[in-house]
């Protein structure tokens, strides 16, 4: 967490800079509207968030957390490549859960005058109405009383009981059945239980983000009740959880980052552009603050050069066919020379057998010699390898071949993430031991990002190759491009294995060059893949 901007820093700061930090190089004019909205909300924010600011968002130590300071390469390479050519652009921003909540408050600000009740109560009603403002407003204008009762904000019959914490000398709680309870809580409905049971009950429900009601009836607990019972500003936690429902309802505009443990929300501000993408065989890829790239349309990770259709068909096919394949291909391989079992535990495909010191390529199991140079043939499926096989057998073999490559690169990219964590350590070591400034160490995270993006493109290029007509010239060019990217990626991956900090600094230029090379090869391959799709040489079929 060395470089992340803490949440509290920008909660107090002025809001323009916040938005700009996230949107360093995209359409600021598109965001004008959002900007305005959120500026209204800040007065409200303080009301809800003067407690200790959210720990959950700052907890994960991720190596790429230097996000807000990212220079222009923060956005995807492919996006940048297309920006000049008149194809659609997506305007989006990445929000933390807190910013998301502020945004909801800003929306509520607009409708609050109609209700003239507190924000907390409006949220309760919206939750009951599945965040459909239209339906709520409709019912509200028809019969306010009924809406209030059905949302648990009011009792159907009047009651002279008071709401709140009560003191007793000897109360028997019907939940825990313990006697001698001194402090209890009740709502106007008269259902009264001890404070310990209520605490337990509420704590269990805070993260669900739904209305918390009396244990015996549907009368809702309000934020002040929750804070009085549990303390610690717990109602805030509940309010933050309630954004789940909001996002679910407005999933055209908002999506959670699909990566595990990532709490980022992507907001797209020009959703009309979304429908433009398929025409160009492009996909609306977005990058969250933690540098996870995913497709806003299908929710899969970045799958360029394939489009959503390629990805969908491929994933479906993989699910059908790969259960067994996975088992066979997973984890180990025998050394082609001495037959000893080898487990791959790093991202690079240049293997050296520990037992016989034979050097080979993990993918094609041929000697490594020549792989760095011009004869890199691993990505080529040689059709005439064995003739005489029947058509179906051949097609399965072809699929197996491509699937194998796909999963190899998938595994490698997982290992690359691990490598990324190690890189963070290295960066810190460089700063602490050699006294090099933060900005000067940034070539390392940049390299790893290029590596991961390159690897992801490679991975998804195999489905494209699989569905392409192998006899077409463009397919051949595509395969050549693949091979070039493979060798660029492997080169960079190998360089990133260097451990000695002095050595790393000395080879800084090499890092730069190799990363740049991966980026340009990545771009070339993506463009070529898109060409295949546009010219219908690549046709995904289930």
């Amino acid at each position, binding site marked *: 967490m060395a470089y992340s901007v803490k949440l509290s820093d920008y909660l107090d700061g002025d809001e323009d800079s916040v938005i700009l930090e996230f949107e360093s190089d995209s359409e600021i004019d598109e965001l004008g509207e959002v900007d305005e909205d959120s500026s209204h909300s800040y007065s409200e924010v303080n009301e809800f968030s003067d407690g200790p600011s959210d720990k959950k968002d700052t907890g994960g130590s991720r190596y790429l957390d230097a996000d807000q300071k990212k220079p222009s390469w923060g956005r995807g390479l492919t996006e940048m490549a297309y920006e000049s050519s008149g194809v659609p652009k997506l305007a989006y921003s990445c929000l933390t859960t807190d910013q998301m909540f502020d945004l909801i408050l800003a929306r509520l600000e607009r409708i609050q005058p109609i209700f003239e009740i507190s924000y907390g109560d409006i949220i309760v009603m919206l939750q009951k109405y599945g965040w459909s403002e239209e339906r709520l407003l409709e019912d509200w204008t028809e019969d306010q009383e009924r809406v209030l009762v059905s949302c648990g904000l009011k009792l159907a019959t009047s009651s002279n009981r008071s709401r709140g914490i009560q003191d007793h000398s000897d109360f028997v709680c*019907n*939940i*825990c*059945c313990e006697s001698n309870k001194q402090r209890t809580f009740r709502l106007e409905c008269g*259902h009264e*239980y001890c404070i310990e049971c209520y605490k*337990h*009950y509420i704590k269990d429900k805070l993260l669900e983000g739904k209305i918390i009601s009396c*244990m*015996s009836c549907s009368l809702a607990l309000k934020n002040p009740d929750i804070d009085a019972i549990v303390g610690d500003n717990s109602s805030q936690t509940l309010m933050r959880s309630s954004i789940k429902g909001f996002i679910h309802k407005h999933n055209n505009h908002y999506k959670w980052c699909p990566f595990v443990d990532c709490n980022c929300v992507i907001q797209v501000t020009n959703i009309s552009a979304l429908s433009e993408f398929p025409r160009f065989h492009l996909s609306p890829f977005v990058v969250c603050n933690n540098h996870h790239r995913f497709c806003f349309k299908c929710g899969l990770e970045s799958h360029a050069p394939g489009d959503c259709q390629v990805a969908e068909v491929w994933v479906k096919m993989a699910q059908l066919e790969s259960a067994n394949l996975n088992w066979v291909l997973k984890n180990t391989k025998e050394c082609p020379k001495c037959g000893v079992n080898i487990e791959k535990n790093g991202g690079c495909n240049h293997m050296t057998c520990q037992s016989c010191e034979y050097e080979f390529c993990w993918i094609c199991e041929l000697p490594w010699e020549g792989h760095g140079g011009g004869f890199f043939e691993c990505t080529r499926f040689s059709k005439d390898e064995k003739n005489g096989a029947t058509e179906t057998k051949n097609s399965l073999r072809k699929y197996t071949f491509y699937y194998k490559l796909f999963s190899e690169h998938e595994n490698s990219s997982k290992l690359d993430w691990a490598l990324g964590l190690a890189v963070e350590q290295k960066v810190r070591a460089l700063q602490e031991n050699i006294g090099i400034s933060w900005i000067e160490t940034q070539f390392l995270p940049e390299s790893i990002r290029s590596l991961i993006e390159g690897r992801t493109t490679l991975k998804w290029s195999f489905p494209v190759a699989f569905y392409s007509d192998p006899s077409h010239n463009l397919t051949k060019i595509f395969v050549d491009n693949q091979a070039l990217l493979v060798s660029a990626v492997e080169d960079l991956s190998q360089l990133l294995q260097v451990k000695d900090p002095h050595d790393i600094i000395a080879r800084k230029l090499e890092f730069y060059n190799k990363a740049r090379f991966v980026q340009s090869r990545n771009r070339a391959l993506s463009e070529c893949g898109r060409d295949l799709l546009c010219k219908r040489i690549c046709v995904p079929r289930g």
Partner: protein
Amino acid sequence: MASLPKRIIKETERLVLDPVPGINAVPHEDNLRYFQVTIEGPQQSPYEDGVFELELFLPDDYPMEAPKVRFLTKIYHPNIDRLGRICLDVLKANWSPALQIRTVLLSVQALLASPNPNDPLANDVAEDWLKHEDEAIAKAREWTKQYASRK
């Protein structure tokens, strides 16, 4: 074993002293959180005259967490699957700590009286139920006779 919460002791006592008609729940002697339950099929339902065995377990977090209930006797019902798992709101989202073992078992009995094929757990059964209700009811009656007759 950790001492049993007072709530569970009270509920158990009441189940024994003031049993619900047609429902019998006895805690296991080795584990007082585990109950062996029998429910009589409600009258005027396809399950009439049947006696169904169930198991009920009170998790550590009970009563904040719902009890776990499962049919042990084979039953043909759109909301109960082949493993005896039950699709019932009070066992899941609508559980409230103010509910009890007896209220849950009453709800299960009520589910037998009014199956809900529109919110199915056993899809094949529910489909039968919606398409050929008479046949489905006959089958439920047959299964009751075959698997749930009073011993």
